[in-house]
């Protein structure tokens, strides 16, 4: 579903991403771990076509994102560290707006509210302006948007950063549910624990390169931390 082929990106001679090769199949969750500047966000930006690759390809469902920028975005949903919504609109209005812009202009109110149900947001909250929402609620609206647009792939950039453990856990549960429904997920995170909990695989990035890939079922929390730190100290 998501594929990087020798994907590289340099900014003014500084390498941000070097020859990245990865594939994420439907139902898989690949968590990219790494320090700041490791290339995690650059990878996501390349899949979103927010930045052009210096070389290589980023593909969504087999389509090069630079060649098919609009079509590939129909398949993906993006949830950043802070899902930014329009604070003067209600949660429901925000969801309706983003869903319409994703091409689903025919959704009715009930169908949108069902998306709120699915992410565990109260229907009453949907009527409130998002200026009153907590960060966790905003992140859930982000998931609701992904559900409403029937995304086949998720691109998550530090989505649980700053969330309290309960909200973080609820978010991970939602990601797992979507994964079980066949959604391919690429998540950039600093949180080893959340990566182990949510991911089917973990990729460790350093200085723009993917230096290791592990199956989360094959390593424990402690092993993952040790391997990660070993790579960071090399």
């Amino acid at each position, binding site marked *: 579903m998501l594929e990087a082929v020798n994907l590289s990106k340099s900014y003014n001679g500084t390498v941000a991403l070097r020859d990245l090769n990865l594939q994420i199949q439907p139902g898989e969750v690949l968590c990219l771990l790494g320090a700041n500047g490791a290339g995690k966000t650059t990878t996501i930006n390349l899949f979103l076509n*927010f930045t052009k690759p210096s070389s290589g390809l980023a593909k969504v469902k087999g389509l090069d994102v630079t060649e098919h920028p609009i079509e590939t*975005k129909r398949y993906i*949903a993006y949830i*950043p560290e802070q899902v930014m*919504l329009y604070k003067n*609109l209600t949660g429901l209005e925000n969801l309706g*707006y983003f869903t*319409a*812009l994703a*091409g689903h202009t025919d959704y009715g109110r009930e169908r949108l509210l069902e998306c709120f149900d699915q992410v565990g947001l109260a229907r009453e909250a949907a009527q409130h302006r998002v200026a009153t929402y907590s960060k966790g609620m905003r992140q859930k609206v982000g998931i609701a948007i992904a559900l409403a647009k029937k995304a086949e792939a998720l691109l998550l950039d530090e989505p649980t950063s700053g969330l309290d453990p309960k909200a973080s856990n609820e978010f991970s549960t939602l990601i797992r549910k979507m994964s079980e429904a066949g959604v391919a997920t690429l998540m950039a995170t600093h949180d080893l624990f959340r990566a182990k909990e949510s991911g089917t695989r973990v990729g460790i990035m350093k200085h723009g390169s993917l230096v290791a890939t592990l199956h989360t079922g094959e390593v424990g929390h402690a092993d993952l931390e040790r391997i990660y730190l070993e790579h960071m100290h090399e």
Partner: protein
Amino acid sequence: MNNPSRMIISIAKKEMTEMFRDGRFRLASGIVAVLLLASLAAGWKQYGDLKNQHETAQKAERYNWLGQTPKNPHQGAHYGVYAFKPKSQLSIVDTGVDPYIGVAVYLEAHKQNEFKFRPAQDAATSIQRFGELTAAVVLQILIPLLIILLAFSSFAGEREQGTLRQLLSLGVERSRLAAGKALGVAGALAAVLVPATLIGVLTLALTSSKGLLAVDVSRTILMIGAYGLYFLIFLSLSLAVSALSSSSRVALVVLLSFWILNGLIATRTFSDLAGFLHPTPSEVEFDTALQRDLEDTRELNARLDEIKSGLFQKYGVSKLDDLPINFRAISLQQAEELNYTKFEKHFGDVFDRFEQQNGIYQLGAAVAPLLAVRSLSMGLAGTDFAHHRDFTTAAENYRRTIVRYMNDDILVHPTKAGEEYIAGSELWKTVPEFQYEAPGPLWALSRYKTSIVLLIVWLAAAAAAVVFAARRIQA
């Protein structure tokens, strides 16, 4: 599922919802709406008052003309009448140059007079002179400011808030995003302008015995079109600048700079430039030059001698008293006709210079679209110099008609030396009443081809700028 028009409408609806919920928008648009309605109300009252005054005065003038005591027709011509320039309906919106060039002219024998009764001159205080807020000022200056305030953060603000990144991740086409935002701002603006326009039109219709027929539909539609183009230019430019600016603050500074250039600097600069390139004489210089020409009677004397000889020969007489016609009438008419060319030369020269100045002013629209819409607005309101000149010509023609009627009557009533022919009301009645019909809207438009072309060029450029900027929108 992926319906472009519904998507654009969704974007527009969201933009409008956000604006209507924003207290700053409500305050700004409320102030502009109140100012617009207040200026329309003031314009309407002024229009009603002046229209009634002019109609009453014109009737009184006719009554006085017909009620003259018996006298020599030439004295009748000197008795004279006032011709009042009819108030155009759209002067409610744009008073144009009327307050500065007068509304009535005194028509009498021998002289083409200048216009009198200038509201700007008659204003009691300096505050009245400079504090006039017409609907045209609101439409030309304040509405563009409102558009800027509504649109400057359309893209730059979203980029700062992070919502632009969210939007672009959805795969929405940038052109649709720009179209939706433009429609949203236009919709919010319409919420201010449409009620004001409807109130204006309905007030006019309800207060006239003709109802809706009282509304000059074609000129009103053309004026709405001209202002619509002007607002679209500002809307497109605001969106383009917002899309290209690194922050909403930068966008606001750029747009306000353009607004100042457009509304304050360009108008003054091009007025001064027009005056510099095509200077007009002062009132004293004009009067002195005209008087000098009028006092030169050599040509008149030569022509009268020639006519007199011809008449003596034709009628076989040697004295004026023996002519079967009144030679005084010929003398008066010849003097008038010789003066016609002098008036036409002097007034024509000044009027031509005003029109040349107007041409320079219109060319200024290449820099500031306000100059185009201001010219068009005055033209369509019938309060520009071109309409003034047209009325002046009609009034002068009427003056000549009166003089001709009087002289023709004198001509067929020969008198001996020491006698005076006296005419009565029968003669006064033969002079037709002064009627003036303002030229049609196409005539008005034909005076402003430069403005129309430049307004369209501005719109095309602004639209191209939006398309270009929309393609470059970065998350």
